[in-house]
C-alpha cells in the first residue's frame, strides 16, 4: 500500500478480511509472513505496538464510552497529564486542530450518547488521529451509516488522503469501494485473489472475483418439492429499538420436500428472520403459519414441539451448553419431548440412550457422551446438533450457516443430512454465506438485502456472480 492512498480490501464473509486486519493491528499473530512499515519489518504483539508504529483502527462496532464526552473518549487511554492532573484544555485544542485540519468537526464537549452514528464514527477517527497514526484501518465503516453520512465520510477520507495519510478500507459494498478506493485488493478463502484499479473493473467483475467463478458440481437430482405448504410466513416486519427496520414485509413459503435458500450479506436481516420464525422476537409483526396452524403468537417452545428443528447460526451461543455433557445437550431444545422427558421429569435413561444413537448415526467423534460439549471439535458439535434437530420427526428444519467453521468431512456429512431431510419431505430453510452450498442444495433462492427480499433466483440457472451482485446491491434487481 502506498502512502497517501485509499486501499480497499473486499471479500465475502469469512474470506479473511477481519483476520487480516486483526493481524495488522496486532490483535492476532500471523503463523507466517512479515509486515513491513516504511520498509522496515515489524512485529506487532498488541494494538499498542501497532499504534506506536502509526497504525490505528476504527472498528465496525464503535468502542466508545457512552457516558463520556467526545473529549474524554478521545483521550481515554492516552490522557495528557501534568503531575497527575488531566490537561483537558490542551487536549481540547488538539482535537479542534485535528478537526480543522481534516474537516472532521465534532463538539468536544458533547456526550457521546447524545450524538449520532456519523458523529460517533468521526470521534473514532479523531481518536486514531489524536494518537498520531499515519495509517488508518476502517472496518466496514459504511455499514451503519445512511447515504448522506457516507458522503461526509468519503470527503473526510479524501482530506486525509491529500494530507498524506494512508487508509485501508474494508467493505463489501462494491459501488462504494469503486468510488472511494485508489486500489482494490480482493481476497477469497484466506488468500489474495488479485489487486486491481477501480478504473479497470466494474462492480460486477469485482463481485465475480469476490465469490470466485467455480460453480458447484450441479447435482442431477429430481425435485422432491410437493404442493403441501409447510411454512407460510407473510408480512414479517421487525423494528430495532433504535427505529431501524431490521425486517421489512418479508413473505416466504416453503413446501414439503423443498429447500429454500436465503442469500445475503451478513447483517441484512437473516438472523432476525430466523429468530422471528422461531418465535424469539415478541415485537415482530406478521403471520407465521406452520402446516395448517397459525403459530404467530406461539412461544419458541411450542413451535419446537410442533416440529420445527433449528440449527442456529452461532452454535456456541445458541446451540449448545458448552459446559454441559453431550447427553444434556441432546436434551436442550427438546426438554419437553420424548425420549428426553417423562411428564415434568427429565428421562435420563431415555436421553442417554438416544444420545448414543445420535453419536453412532451421525458419526459424532467422541469417547463418551459424558464429556462436555466444549471438548468436541466444531464439526462434531455441529453433527450432534444436526442429529438432535433431526430427531423427533420435525416438519421444518431451519439451518442457519450449518457448515460454518466445520471441517470438510463434517461439511459433506451435514450436506447429506440436509438432502436426506428434503427427501423425507421436510421443508428446509437454509441460510448460508457459502454461495456454492446455497446453489447446490436449494430448490429456490431468495436474496435478502437490508431486511427485504430484493431478488429471486433459480439455483439451476443462477451463478455465484449473479447472486453476489444481487447480495451487495451492485447488480440491480436480477431474477
Amino acid at each position: 500500500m502506498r502512502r497517501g492512498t485509499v486501499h480497499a480490501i473486499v471479500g465475502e464473509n469469512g474470506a479473511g478480511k477481519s483476520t487480516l486486519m486483526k493481524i495488522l493491528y496486532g490483535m492476532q499473530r500471523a503463523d507466517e509472513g512479515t509486515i513491513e512499515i516504511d520498509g522496515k519489518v515489524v512485529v506487532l504483539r498488541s494494538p499498542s505496538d501497532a499504534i506506536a508504529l502509526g497504525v490505528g483502527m476504527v472498528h465496525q462496532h464503535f468502542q466508545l464510552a457512552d457516558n463520556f464526552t467526545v473529549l474524554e473518549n478521545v483521550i481515554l487511554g492516552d490522557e495528557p497529564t501534568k503531575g497527575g492532573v488531566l490537561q483537558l484544555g490542551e487536549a481540547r485544542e488538539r482535537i479542534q486542530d485535528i478537526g480543522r485540519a481534516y474537516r472532521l468537526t465534532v463538539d468536544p464537549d458533547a456526550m457521546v450518547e447524545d450524538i449520532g452514528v456519523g458523529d460517533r464514527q468521526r470521534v473514532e477517527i479523531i481518536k486514531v488521529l489524536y494518537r498520531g497514526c499515519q495509517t488508518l484501518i476502517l472496518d466496514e465503516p459504511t455499514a451503519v451509516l445512511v447515504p448522506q453520512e457516507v458522503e461526509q465520510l468519503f470527503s473526510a477520507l479524501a482530506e486525509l488522503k491529500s494530507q498524506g495519510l494512508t487508509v485501508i478500507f474494508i467493505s463489501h459494498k462494491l459501488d462504494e469501494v469503486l468510488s472511494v478506493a485508489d486500489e482494490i485488493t480482493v481476497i477469497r478463502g484466506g488468500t489474495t485473489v488479485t489487486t486491481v484499479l477501480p478504473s479497470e473493473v466494474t462492480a460486477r467483475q469485482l463481485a465475480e472475483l469476490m465469490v470466485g467463478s467455480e460453480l458447484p458440481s450441479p447435482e442431477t437430482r429430481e425435485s422432491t418439492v410437493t404442493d403441501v405448504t409447510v411454512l407460510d410466513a407473510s408480512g414479517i416486519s421487525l423494528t430495532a429499538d433504535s427505529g431501524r427496520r431490521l425486517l421489512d414485509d418479508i413473505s416466504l413459503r416453503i413446501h414439503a420436500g423443498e429447500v429454500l435458500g436465503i442469500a445475503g450479506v451478513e447483517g441484512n436481516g437473516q438472523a432476525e428472520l430466523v429468530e422471528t420464525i422461531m418465535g424469539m422476537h415478541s415485537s415482530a409483526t406478521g403471520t407465521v403459519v406452520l402446516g395448517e396452524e397459525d403459530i404467530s403468537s406461539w412461544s419458541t417452545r411450542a413451535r419446537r414441539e410442533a416440529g420445527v428443528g433449528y440449527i442456529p447460526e452461532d452454535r456456541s451461543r445458541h446451540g449448545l451448553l458448552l459446559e454441559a455433557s453431550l447427553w444434556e445437550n441432546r436434551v436442550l431444545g427438546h426438554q419437553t419431548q420424548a425420549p428426553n422427558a417423562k411428564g415434568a421429569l427429565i428421562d435420563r435413561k431415555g436421553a442417554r440412550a438416544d444420545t448414543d444413537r445420535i453419536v453412532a448415526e451421525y458419526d459424532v467423534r467422541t469417547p463418551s457422551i459424558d464429556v462436555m460439549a466444549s471438548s468436541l471439535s466444531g464439526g462434531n458439535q455441529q453433527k450432534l446438533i444436526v442429529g438432535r434437530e433431526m430427531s423427533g420427526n420435525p416438519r421444518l428444519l431451519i439451518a442457519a450457516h450449518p457448515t460454518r467453521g466445520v471441517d470438510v468431512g463434517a461439511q459433506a456429512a451435514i450436506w447429506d443430512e440436509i438432502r436426506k431431510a428434503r427427501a423425507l419431505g421436510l421443508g428446509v430453510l437454509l441460510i448460508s454465506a457459502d454461495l456454492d452450498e446455497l446453489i447446490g442444495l436449494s430448490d429456490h433462492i431468495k436474496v435478502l438485502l437490508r431486511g427485504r427480499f430484493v431478488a429471486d433466483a433459480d439455483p439451476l440457472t443462477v451463478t455465484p456472480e449473479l447472486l453476489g451482485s444481487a447480495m451487495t446491491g451492485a447488480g440491480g434487481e436480477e431474477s
Partner: protein
Amino acid sequence: MRKIALVVAAPLLALAFAVLVTTVILIASGHAPIDVYKQMWDYGTQPDSLVLTLNLSTTYYLAAVSVAIGFKMNLFNIGVDGQYRLAALFAAFVGGRVSLPPVLHVTLIIVVAMAVGAMWAGAAAVLKNRRGVSEVISTIMLNYVATGVIAFLLTTDRFAVMTEGSNNIGTQPIPPSGQVPGFNVIPESTSPVFGLILLAALVGIGYWWMLSRTRFGFDLRATGLSPTAAVASGVNVKRMVLYVMLLSGAIAGLIGMPQLLGESHTYNLDFPAGLGFTGIAIALLGRNSPVGIVFGSLLWAFLDVSRQILDLTGVSKEIVTIMQGVAVLSVVIAYELVRRYGIAAQQREVGRQLAADAELAGATA
C-alpha cells in the same frame, strides 16, 4: 475419579490457604496459632457446642440453598435477609394468634412463612421482568424496606406484646400445638437439636432432585449456563426468573422456622438477623451444590460456635471472621481455576483419545 479429586481439591486448597493467612495474622498479633486452634477445637467439640453447631448450620443450610437456587441461574437474590425476617415475623404473628391441632398449626405457620418470603422475592422478579431493574439492586433495597416494615409492625399497637419480665417486645408466643420439639442427638448434651433439621434435609434433597431430575431444573441450569442457548431452546426466561425468585423466596421463608418453632416461639427484637448474607457466603463456599452446602454450613457454624472461647483467652474473635472471609474469596478463585483446568484437561484428553482411536483404525485398515 479425577473429576471427584478436582471437586474436592479446590475447597481443601482454599481452606488451607485461609488457615495459612489466619496463622500469619495470629503470629503477627503475638499469639501462638497452635494454641488458639487447639482452644477452638476443644471448645467446639464439646457436646453442647456440637448441638449449637448443628442448630446453627440448619438455618445456614436453608439460607444457602435459598441463595444457591438463584445463583444456579445467575440470579442474585441478595434479599434473602429481608425475605426471611419478614416471613418469620408474619409466621410468628399468625402462629401466635390461632389455635389449631398440632400438625395443622405447624403447617400453617410454615406455609405463611413461605408465602411471605416468596412474595417479597417475587416483587424483585416483577420489577426485573417488567422494568428491567437489576435484581441485585432491588433485593438489596427490599432488605431495607423489610427492616422498616418490621419496625413498623413490631410494636405493641400492632403485632407485638410486652415480654413478661423484660423490656423486650415480641409477637404473642406460639402455643405448644404450633411448636416443633427438638430431639437429642448428642448423648452427653442435655440441649436438643432443632426438630426442623429434618426439614432442612428435606429441602436439600428436594433441591438436588429438582436440579438434576426435573425439566424445570434443566431449564434453570441451562439458563444459568447460557441464557442465549436457553432462549433458543424454548425457555421462557422471564417466566423462569419469576419462578426461581418465588422459589428462592419461599425457601428463604423457611430460614427462621427452626429458631421460631424450635426455640424462641416468638419473633422479638432479638430474633437473629443477617442470616441471608451468611447464606450468600456459604452458597459460594459450597459451590451451590446441595452436598457442598452441607459441608459449608457445618464448617461455618463450627467456626461461629468455637470462636466464642476466644474472648476468654484474650484473642480477638474477629480473627475467625477473617478466616471465613479469606476462605470464601479463595474458594471462589480456586473453583474458577479448577474449572478452567478441568475444561482444558478434558479437551486435551478427548483429542488424545480420538487421535489414538484413529491411529488404531489406521493400523488395522
